């Protein structure tokens, strides 16, 4: 059985777009954060697909780099979120409105 590579690419594009929409539309910081992770994983799928289509390993190596960076981002991101919301009830972006002008 074989699946055309373009299907994977289209799936990745759809996932990436859903991630973008999620970041722009959702107001819960944790969900926005998860949407960014989804965008990164859509990119990973794209890398692996292109890697198989081109018969080149570099794309799959790139995925490891992305995974490591995403993990580092999670650590810092959750750290920031925890330090802000330790004294609050919910994690809603609309509550953050001190900075404007």
């Amino acid at each position: 059985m074989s699946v055309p590579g373009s299907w994977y690419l289209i799936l990745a594009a759809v996932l990436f777009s859903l991630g973008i929409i999620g970041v722009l539309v959702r107001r819960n910081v944790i969900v926005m954060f998860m949407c960014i992770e989804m965008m990164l994983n859509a990119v990973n799928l794209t890398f692996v697909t292109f890697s198989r289509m081109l018969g080149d390993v570099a794309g799959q190596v790139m995925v490891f780099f992305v995974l490591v960076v995403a993990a580092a981002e999670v650590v810092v991101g959750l750290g920031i979120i925890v330090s802000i919301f330790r004294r609050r009830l919910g994690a809603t972006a609309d509550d953050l409105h001190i900075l404007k002008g």
Partner: protein
Amino acid sequence: MEHLLAAIATGPAITFPTISYKAIGPEIILVVGALVVMLTTSLFPSTRGTRTPSVLAALTALLAFADSATMWANFAEHGAYRAIASSITIDGFAVFLLVTISATTFMGTLLGSAYLSEGRFGTGEFQGLLLLSATGAMLLASAGDLIVIFLGLEILSIALYVLAGFEKRSTASGEAALKYFVLGGFSSALFLYGIALTYGATGSTNIAKIAGFLASNTITANGVLLAGMALLIVGLAFKVAAVPFHLWTPDVYQGSPSASVGYMAAAAKAAGFAGLLRILVSAFPTLRLDWQPIIWALAALTLVVGAVLAVVQNDLKRMLAYSSINHAGFVLLGVEAATARGTSASIYYLLAYAFMVVATFAIVNSFEDRETGRVPLEKLRGLASRNPGIAFFLAILLVAQAGAPLTTGLVAKFAVVSAAVSAHSYVLAVIAMLSAVIATFFYLRVVAVAYARGPRRRSLVSQPQMAMAATGTVAAEGEAAVASASLMEKISLPVEAQIVVAIGVAGTVIFGIFPNYILHMADLAKVLL
């Protein structure tokens, strides 16, 4: 079994790329320095809250500067080269930016020390993170592969998210860190998707290979490639705060501590533009007709929006944020020219801006309200009568940013505009000059406030009232007067901040009067194609 052994014995040898440690010397120095700084504070708790970590960090930055300067001498003698399987490019462009970034880092560690000297926690962490983020900026400057650009971008940004939220007890600082983090992560994801699409279209992430592929092949249906290139531009446009991707900038500048902002404004901008120029000039020179209009539009919007919105700000830090957006527009002018001259002008501008902005924030640092991060313009009223020295240096730095003669501000603006004119971008050059006029207005407005007559203070708080305040039998009226007097009292800069201001003003004025040496360096700093 024997077959297996034979296969193991006679199998092909695995070749590794040669690692040239010389090519990543400044990065290694900074990483080792960051580890030393952080280990010192954790192994010797008595150094916490003292100047020791800051001194170590500043020495590390100086060492990295010396190494970058040596690389410049080597480059001038032996020319450019690629290293570590072509993932690092050491050309004039890279080394010029390495020098810029290490100088910025040195000033940043001093400014950090001024901020931390108020008896703050986490001295080692601040300085360690600052050195690590500088490593990322340097990787971006000398990258030869899109993977290295991505890694550099993330190393730079992740450390900066923490630095933006360093004022732990302040809600504003936390909010700034979160906003920077969400938009930074978002733009990194866009950038990464750009890399993936470019990889799919060209079959490589190596910049030299991409350029070689595009030069020898004509892609008939290049939708994937163009989408990839557009996403790469958008991802970096977020980092350098180009309109319409600038929305995080004012909030992050206002909420974060000035010490972080001063370093971030200079280093993140230099690194972001390094990545942008490297990608556009070195990887996509054949697609110039496709990316030039995008950069044109970004530059025009950035110049106009940055200047116009800066005029209506009443907070000095927000105004400086919009001014940094305006400066990004000027650098984009050199990018849009797409010539060697434009590239030189852009990196010269980044160097000049780095000196001006770190020194400006070294002054702003002393006026900042740590809780809200605000610096209302009114707080500067009458500064010249209270602190003539500070007011004078602030005025020099601001008029230099406006592009006054005898400063690097004018030389830099002249360089980018003349590069745009020689590339026949006349309309953009006119827009740039008009925005410079608007920008002059808001810089001079701050200077005018600082040199305006201050509010009356001596007459309000007369001697008897002071005495009453001391004995605690003070009327409400007297209390208010004392409060306003304490707001208007003399402010003294910490000694580290004085050094930063001295370096910044000296660099701005000396190289503004004698610009030839650095301009000549910038001319030599070509991108290796």
